[in-house]
């Protein structure tokens, strides 16, 4: 049945574990306590030049108890799914909270949330990727390899498909009991070519995004894989012959297949309130957006409006409830270029004096403490806006770039550098061949202030990251980012080949 949670997860003693841990926590006077049972299934199939290189699958299940006691957090996790183990985890978490309370610091408070007894949620998909026989998975990827290798420009092909299924049961002292199931897949194909001039390597990767869909996605539901793969050899051939970029300041038409990553790094992470509070200062870094910046910080041009949501269809961060029992929401982060909101979990919402969390707590697995993680963060398209060709036609001297590649941003989410799969020269409104070695560098607010053209809904694409790392111990999370094609005026383009890097 399409909306049901797997029986094998429901067969775990979820309610008994919750009763055991939560009654213990209540007895011991915890202010907040939650038991989470999480099962994560992950799989990966890698085919190189048509031959199977790696294939694996793993299912990990365990429970965690998180308490707020004497103003401090405590967390403990165990793989044992018995009431006794749940009680032990609760005791360990309480002991940690007491030890940490003794060190001092301001007591933690949480924003309230209504209780949701007996809620369930499942992401929409048709074919569970873990029910597809391995032979079928390998055959599809081999077929993709063979199609590309028939072309002279393609020396090697690496085809990979990853899949994940997450089941979570969350129960807390307020009476919330939520059961959820999510599935996502990410196919990628990398074609390797050789530069005729020196035999050097040039690669081109598909831009089809990771999505919360099932195996039907690889058959073309939601992305035209056949079409993208058909275009790859000629684009790779052009890339292997591309001259080095001439560094300078150019107008850029950025395809959503690259722009999503710049949004992820320069807007998504920069509007995480835990970063604004300094909680990531020693590792992932902070943000230039100070806690009091909402309503005051000019982030970009008036064309820039960015929304956060937990509801985009097939979004990687789309979910019914977060890992603190908060129901999914949508809210604006940036309106007409001005910062208006942040991403909050229950702790940071209370710190900011907000009545409610935005539902941004997420844990990678039972072994991980829920922490502030990004929802889907997306740039609005222009109403009745132009298509990408019209945006390109409006540029006399610039580049059209597509497909995310390398990325790096500083510890306040300001100075960044991005490369792309393809950099097409634009001369007088027309594409005029690819260049190689190019990267764009900018400062976040200067970049977004240079936004001068937006594509319409027809250019809008939901891409995303399925391996975003943050926190210590580091955790991976997935989030989608939708955006239209967009034009940025006068951006620094460098040659990473070393001549002017």
């Amino acid at each position, binding site marked *: 049945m399409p909306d049901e949670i797997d029986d094998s997860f429901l067969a775990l003693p979820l309610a008994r574990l919750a009763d055991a841990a939560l009654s213990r926590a209540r007895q011991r006077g915890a202010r907040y306590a939650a038991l989470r049972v999480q099962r*994560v299934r992950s799989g*990966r199939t890698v085919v*190189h030049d048509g*031959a*199977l290189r*790696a*294939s*694996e699958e*793993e*299912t*990990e*299940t*365990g429970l965690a108890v998180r308490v707020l006691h004497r103003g401090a957090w405590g*967390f*403990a*996790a165990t*793989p*044992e799914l*018995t009431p006794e183990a749940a009680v032990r985890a609760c005791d360990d978490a309480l*002991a*940690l909270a007491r*030890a940490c309370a*003794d060190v001092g*610091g301001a007591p933690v408070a949480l924003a309230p949330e209504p209780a949701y007894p007996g809620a369930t949620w499942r992401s929409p998909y048709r074919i569970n990727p873990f029910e597809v*026989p*391995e*032979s079928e998975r390998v055959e599809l990827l081999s077929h993709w390899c063979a199609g590309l290798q028939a072309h002279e420009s393609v*020396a*090697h092909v690496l085809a990979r498909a990853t899949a994940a299924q997450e089941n979570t049961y969350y129960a807390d002292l307020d009476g919330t009991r939520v059961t959820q199931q999510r599935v996502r897949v990410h196919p990628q194909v990398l074609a*390797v070519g050789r530069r005729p001039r020196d035999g*050097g*390597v040039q*690669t081109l990767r598909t831009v089809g995004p990771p999505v919360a869909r099932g195996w039907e996605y690889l058959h073309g539901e939601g992305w035209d894989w056949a079409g993208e793969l058909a275009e790859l050899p000629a684009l790779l051939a052009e890339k292997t012959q591309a001259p080095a970029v001439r560094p300078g300041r150019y107008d850029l038409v950025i395809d959503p297949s690259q722009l999503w990553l710049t949004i992820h790094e320069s807007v998504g992470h920069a509007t995480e309130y835990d970063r604004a*509070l*300094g*909680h990531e*200062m*020693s*590792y992932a870094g902070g943000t230039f957006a100070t806690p009091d910046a909402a309503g005051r910080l000019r982030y970009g041009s008036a064309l820039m409006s960015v929304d956060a949501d937990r509801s985009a269809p097939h979004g990687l961060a789309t979910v019914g409830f977060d890992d603190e029992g908060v129901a999914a929401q949508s809210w604006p982060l940036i309106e007409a270029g001005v910062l208006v909101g942040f991403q909050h979990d229950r702790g940071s919402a209370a710190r900011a004096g907000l009545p409610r969390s935005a539902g941004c707590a997420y844990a990678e697995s039972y072994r991980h*403490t829920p*922490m502030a993680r990004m929802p889907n963060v997306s740039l609005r398209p222009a109403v009745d806006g132009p298509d990408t060709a019209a945006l390109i036609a409006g540029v006399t001297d610039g580049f059209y770039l597509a497909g995310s590649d*390398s990325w*790096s941003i*500083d*510890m*306040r989410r*300001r*100075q960044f*550098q991005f*490369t792309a799969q393809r950099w097409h020269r634009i001369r007088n409104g027309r594409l005029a061949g690819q260049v190689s070695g190019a*990267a764009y*560098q900018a400062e976040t607010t200067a970049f977004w202030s240079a936004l001068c053209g937006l594509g319409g809904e027809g250019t809008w694409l939901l891409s995303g990251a399925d391996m975003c790392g943050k926190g*210590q*111990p*580091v955790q991976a999370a997935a989030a989608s980012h939708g955006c239209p094609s967009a034009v940025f005026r006068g951006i620094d383009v*460098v040659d*990473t*080949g*070393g001549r002017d*890097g």
Partner: protein
Amino acid sequence: MSGIQDALEAALRHRRDADELLLIADETAAAHLRWAGDALTTNGSVRSRRVTAAAVRDGAAGVHVGLVGHGGALGDALPGLVRAAERAARDAPPAADATRLPEPWRTPSWAEPPGGTSVDAFGDVLPGLADAFAAAGQRRLYGYTEHRVVTTYLAASTGARLRHAQSTGLFDLSVRDGDDSAWAGVTAPDLTGLDVPALAAELSATLARPGRRVELPPGRYEVLLTPNCVADLMLHLYLAAGARGALDGRTAFSRPDGRLPLGERLTALPLTLRSDPDHPLLPCAPFTVSRGTDDLTAVVDNGLPLRPTRWIDEGVLTALVQTRHTAEQTGAPLTPMVDNLVLEGGPDAPTLPEMVRSTRRGLLLTSLWYLRDVDPASLLLTGLTRDGVRLVEDGEIVGTVHNFRFNESPLSLLARATEAGRPVPALPREWGDYFTRMVMPPLRVPDFLMSAVSPAT
């Protein structure tokens, strides 16, 4: 069933149609604490268990491998896991690199129980933190500490019975004062004796040093890279040094004619990059553990004994990371990945303070961040400096400079380095969760290319 060893023995007996069966069990106990702005923000006590089963099956067209992992309670999960691995091996086409498992051997420690840890492993760290918070004044402390014991058991139907317990402690501290900051990272098997107030005071003294704030344009500068910076860069090099990727034509070690660049000189300095599972400061697993085939390891190589390996010998590339399959393909010696890394120059190398004293004008980079591949074919990375760029003039630190972005390749840096200092234990800041066992020297590079200024403080 008493211990994990008995469970593995019993599971091996569930082998039906696989020619060989391999099981890897990881028992992990970990405790962690995190703080920001003088308050603890996160903590945890985590136990986990993971068993990976690989079924190996001979077929007409080659060797088939089925790999399935189980994380969680053992219960009666292992027979099902073995069946799933055997099913995957039947269902899969032959794997390109697959061969039978290596010759079996046993470690004497096989029968020993898994190691454990708890919040007690922090010893004086918690009270030390409380004292450091109290003494911080206007400064703010940010950081993280973790103690983790992973005990790995590897058992195969071939007779292999191997055990390794790895104890890893990590302590990471930033001290911030207005726009200035400093960072220190410590890794050691045991953190109980760590003097947190002393470490915090040492970093605070760095910030308190009189000096000016200096604005400098992008361009080429002489730099001194601290051992921690060198650790980040050499780890990127190590992880890109797989023969697999080189043969596929995707990496900086690929050559158009398909040969491996062994014997090529990488640097004029007598630098040696090596690994040794028995290194006295950095002991690590003496056998290959691969939970999934990738550019550096192969599942069918699990249990291979590891030996001291020289990757670069006095400046000359002597080995890439090999699997049995790539070693056979290339005719090169079998040199599998080892979980530690040492870079060292000749004897009588100067200390970092001595290198500072012999610098007329240069930048001392204390920490690197957000290193990412830009061009794998040249190992070109981009990244940023972080938490302390110091200006050195006439042998003294005279000021603090803003951060920079750079685009550089570790291979090119080795080729251009003019001096290597005395190696010390070092922590790659960005990979502290993954690869921590390193001994690295400071390096002097006369023409490090700063591509842009970062305003981040």
